[in-house]
């Protein structure tokens, strides 16, 4: 809970920061498609190379990027463990009941770990380099056609933008409540699963209550600044495609093409996976 870095904007100026959020969204989707299309490690290696370039051109420090992985470490280890222990294969190293460690299992879970890490890092690159406002502007712009079927896209975008901006505030609040409970002798750490879940109640209840109070006040502050959902607003930051976006688009397209090619020509490559 202390790690607030996931999904936080990293404010520097860079090639990637300056890209259009729509293209970045497209890039992320393309990247995810590429990860799941990739049938072998070559494909993933291609994704990794592209990702390294993205990181390099975003000027986000590598440590910060790696920290994003920490948040999903448990998931990664868990998935890997399940796959190593339960996946059967031809070359079995160790077997006990339904537990079975095989070469295929190890290779497959390595594959999964790579996929997961690439996925998480690329997604957090989007949030590191794109402000929530840009992101929602991008999503709003992409979803614009839905206004035809009477879906209030811009209201949804506002809701999302506020939700995103409230994350650090609520994180801080959680930390504060947790400390307050601890200071008064609340037993929050340790204990079994049930005890842990129970310990969440005295944190969640005040958190939710305060979130409502915040929402109320924020609503007033928005009203006071002339917010009306039904009214047409202007946008200070207009989305405009530039040469950067063309490059982003081309790289994404090339990545998918590359991964497909690597799948097809796998047989001609030397590493037998």
């Amino acid at each position, binding site marked *: 809970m202390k790690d607030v870095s996931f999904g936080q*904007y990293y404010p520097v100026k860079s090639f990637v920061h300056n890209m259009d959020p729509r293209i970045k969204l497209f890039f992320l989707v393309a990247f995810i498609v590429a990860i799941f299309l990739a049938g072998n490690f070559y494909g993933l290696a291609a994704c990794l190379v592209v990702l390294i370039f993205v990181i390099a051109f975003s000027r986000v420090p590598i440590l910060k990027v790696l920290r994003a992985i920490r948040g999903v470490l448990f998931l990664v280890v868990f998935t890997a463990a399940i796959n190593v222990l339960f996946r059967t294969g031809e070359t079995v190293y160790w077997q006990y009941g339904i537990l079975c460690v095989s070469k295929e299992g190890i290779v497959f879970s390595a594959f999964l770990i790579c996929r997961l890490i690439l996925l998480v890092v690329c997604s957090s690159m989007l949030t590191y380099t794109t402000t929530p406002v840009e992101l929602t502007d991008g999503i709003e712009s992409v979803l614009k056609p839905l206004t035809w079927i009477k879906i209030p896209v811009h209201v949804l975008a506002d809701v999302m933008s506020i939700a995103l901006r409230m994350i650090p505030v609520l994180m801080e609040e959680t930390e504060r409540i947790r400390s307050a409970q601890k200071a008064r002798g609340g037993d929050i750490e340790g204990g079994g699963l049930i005890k842990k879940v129970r310990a969440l109640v005295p944190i969640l209840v005040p958190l939710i209550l305060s979130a409502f109070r915040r929402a109320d006040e924020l609503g007033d502050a928005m009203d*006071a*600044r002339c917010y009306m959902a039904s009214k047409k607003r202007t946008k*200070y930051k207009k989305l405009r495609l530039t040469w950067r976006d063309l490059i982003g688009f081309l790289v994404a397209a090339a990545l998918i093409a590359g991964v497909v090619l690597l799948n097809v020509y796998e047989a001609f490559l030397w590493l037998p996976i």
Partner: protein
Amino acid sequence: MNALELRNVKFSYGENAFAIENLNFAVKEGEFVAVLGHNGSGKSTLARLANGLLEADGGEIFVLGMPLEQKNLYEVRKNVGVVFQNPDNQAVASLVEDDVAFGAENVGLPREEIGARIDFALKAVGMEKERHATISRLSGGQKQRVAIAGVLALKPKIMILDESTAMLDPRGRREIIDVVLRLNKEEHITVILITHFMEEALLCGRAVVMNRGEIVMEGAPAEIFERHEELLTYNLALPRIGQICKGLREGGIAVEDTLDIEKLAEEIARCVS
């Protein structure tokens, strides 16, 4: 002309709840008024009535001469900016610039104009350097200055600070007061400062004391603080300097009542010598 005028305003939060029976209150254009009062005295309700966040049950409210009605709510809100108490509950965006733009976007200004207004507003509160900063990383005083800038971007004629300094440290409070004093002097914005810090009231041209939904005292701050026995009945204390005067007299040093530090020093010197 009166910037804001409440005539015989009635309001209630429901049966058996807090109510304003008959409130009359006027603020002249360009004035700097402090509204003092204990918790639950109705001072925040006053702020909310003045820009239509709450609808009065009776009486009339005039903003810059125009009656406040449902149909001109928008006009009123453009002219009456409100800065609220909690620095964390007012920003809608994550970045300073985006948040300051919010109000201006809501009223549908063209892009160039919004840019110019952001420049103006951030300069007025001395936050030009933080234009691209993340709001959640700023200090409380800075967050409130961003909130003021967000209101300023709408170019209001009247600014109400609803206990905007209550959650700040002394330094943050000083920052905010300096900013509004300057806005009042240089931009001729009418300021209504709602507070329970008596020191802040000393800086205003006029002070108004509220108790249980009524205005019970009104006048120059010096006049009001002379009537300290009466203030005590409304659960209000004297500013620090006033308390010192009183204490000195009780201790047998017969100083004259004053709210000026230099004067008090002279008084003490006179009495002691």
